């Protein structure tokens, strides 16, 4: 493992240099809510726009990997039918991604490259450099510590940790290493500083233990299989607005809907996809009009089964990284995985 140090005053310089050569996206402050400061990913045009001591962004960085709306094809109907794929990507650096969101990106990398590889995702992914950062604050609803998402061993090009006077930087890839060499003023790291990184991390991980699963995360698949008929699904789902917020804000939700649009002359058009979510009432509706998950309870249960069981068998890991966004933004407050999973566990004891 290669570990370097950037003194805090030099971080701005590093950023300034990157901005000259790259499109840099990072966490920005945007408006106050009753919970305090809100954070969103956006373009960084000057070093002081970047915020690294955020607790959690409202939306995950997934828009950079799968845009909310994306063109897939251009087609011509007349005079001659023709189809051309559209694959857009531009190089960018995402500066400031917490480990749980990096874990979510690692999962998406796997999902979009296995089986039927998704050229649009993969092309875009190729151009993205990820600079991770360890959290210094814990958002009120997060529980990433119990989802094995407090740290990641891969998925970042560089990984920053605030140790007080300076940031320690772990080099994750050659691309990341080159970035440091070319754009940053770094120094070597002492044994004490290395220890400090361990201490800082365990301190923040401990702060995330306030909200936690009451059982090992690896028990989720069996718990869910044994809870298919739990009355909890109906109880919670009766309040569900089918508003899809829990899907939209989730870093591991990647479902999309595809449709064609034709121009007014009806001779040519485009195929698009847009983010979709399994809580939407028509999500599982097919061409005949049949809806495979007609009830709110069926849709509500489905999301938890996806996170804790279906995708577990594919990833050998939970498809929930414990960011707590769904819990924070669900208006009737029924979407919290910690609450649901713990209550299911309680019931089968």
């Amino acid at each position: 493992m290669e570990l370097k140090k950037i003194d805090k005053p030099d971080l701005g310089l590093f950023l300034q240099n990157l901005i000259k050569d790259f499109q840099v996206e990072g966490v920005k402050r945007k408006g106050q809510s009753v919970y305090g400061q809100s954070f969103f990913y956006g373009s960084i045009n000057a070093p002081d726009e970047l915020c690294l001591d955020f607790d959690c962004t409202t939306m995950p960085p997934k828009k950079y990997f799968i845009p909310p709306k994306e063109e897939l094809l251009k087609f011509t109907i007349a005079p001659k039918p023709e189809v051309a794929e559209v694959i857009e990507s531009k190089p960018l650096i995402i500066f400031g991604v917490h480990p749980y969101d990096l874990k979510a990106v690692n999962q998406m990398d796997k999902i979009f490259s296995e089986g039927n590889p998704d050229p649009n995702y993969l092309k875009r992914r190729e151009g993205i450099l990820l600079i991770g950062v360890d959290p210094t604050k814990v958002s009120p609803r997060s529980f990433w510590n119990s989802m094995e998402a407090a740290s990641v061993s891969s998925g970042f090009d560089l990984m920053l940790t605030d140790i007080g006077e300076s940031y320690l930087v772990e080099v994750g890839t050659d691309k990341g290493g080159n970035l440091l060499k070319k754009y940053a003023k770094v120094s070597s790291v002492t044994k004490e500083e290395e220890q400090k990184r361990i201490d800082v991390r365990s301190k923040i991980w401990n702060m995330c233990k306030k909200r936690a699963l009451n059982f090992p995360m690896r028990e989720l698949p069996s718990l869910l299989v044994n809870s298919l008929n739990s009355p909890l699904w109906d109880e919670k789902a009766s309040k569900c607005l089918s508003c899809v917020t829990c899907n939209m804000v989730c870093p591991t939700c990647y479902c999309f809907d595809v449709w064609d649009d034709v121009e007014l002359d009806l001779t040519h058009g485009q195929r698009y996809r847009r983010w979709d979510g399994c809580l939407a009432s028509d999500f599982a509706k097919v061409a005949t009009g049949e809806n495979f998950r007609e009830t709110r309870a069926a849709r509500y249960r489905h999301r938890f089964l996806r996170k804790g069981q279906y995708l577990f068998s594919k990833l050998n890991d939970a498809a929930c990284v414990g960011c707590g966004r769904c819990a924070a933004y669900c208006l009737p407050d029924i979407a919290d995985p910690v609450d649901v999973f713990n209550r299911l566990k309680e019931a089968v004891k």
Partner: protein
Amino acid sequence: MDKPRVAFFDFASCEGDQLQIVNLEEDLLKVVGAVDVVSFREAMKGHSDNYDIAFVEGSITRRSDEPRLLEIRKNAKILVAIGACATIGGVNLLKNFQDLESVRKFVYGDKFFQYETYPARPIKAVVPVDLEIHQCPINRDEFVMAFKALLMGKKPEFPNYPVCEDCKKAENICVFEMGMTCMGPVTRAGCGACCVVEGSVCWGCRGFIDHPNADSEREVLAKYGLSVGDILKKFRLYTGFSEVSK
């Protein structure tokens, strides 16, 4: 193939929806070129009763409106209601929750007896409607989308998920988190949550999604501090007609 013959009509409305169509800019010529417009008071003189598609704006607020609407329904193969007034009754519906006589006096003064009125209602409350293009006023992109579908003989697909989905994609801070309240969770998306983007809240002008969880929305509004009376007002601003039609 003959071009479809198209006519536009309005009832109680501000004509804002027809104005949206006139304002289609470069698309307007393509729209007009694809069909024969036989009646469009907002944009042309002349009129014919021979048409295939009728676009109807506005709500029905007088018994004497009904024969005219029935005639349009009889003439048209496809009747499309455009704009919140036509699809859900729109703001005209607000008078339904007040004394109609005092409403008339307020609007027409001492000449009120010359002006008849009855509870406002959407087009579908009087005649069957084939298609509804929502919003107050309608949005041009959605009109063009529906128009193209009609040209192709397809049924246009409108979103059946709430405004919250659009709102999250637009990366707004939820207004509930900022001390305001919102009808977005029960309202049909498709507007890009434009009112929230502009700093306001969703008022519900696109009407309910197919299966709104109104009880849960009421609970949420109460949790965020609205009284029973205020909750009723929120629901009546645009979606009051569903109260009657249930």
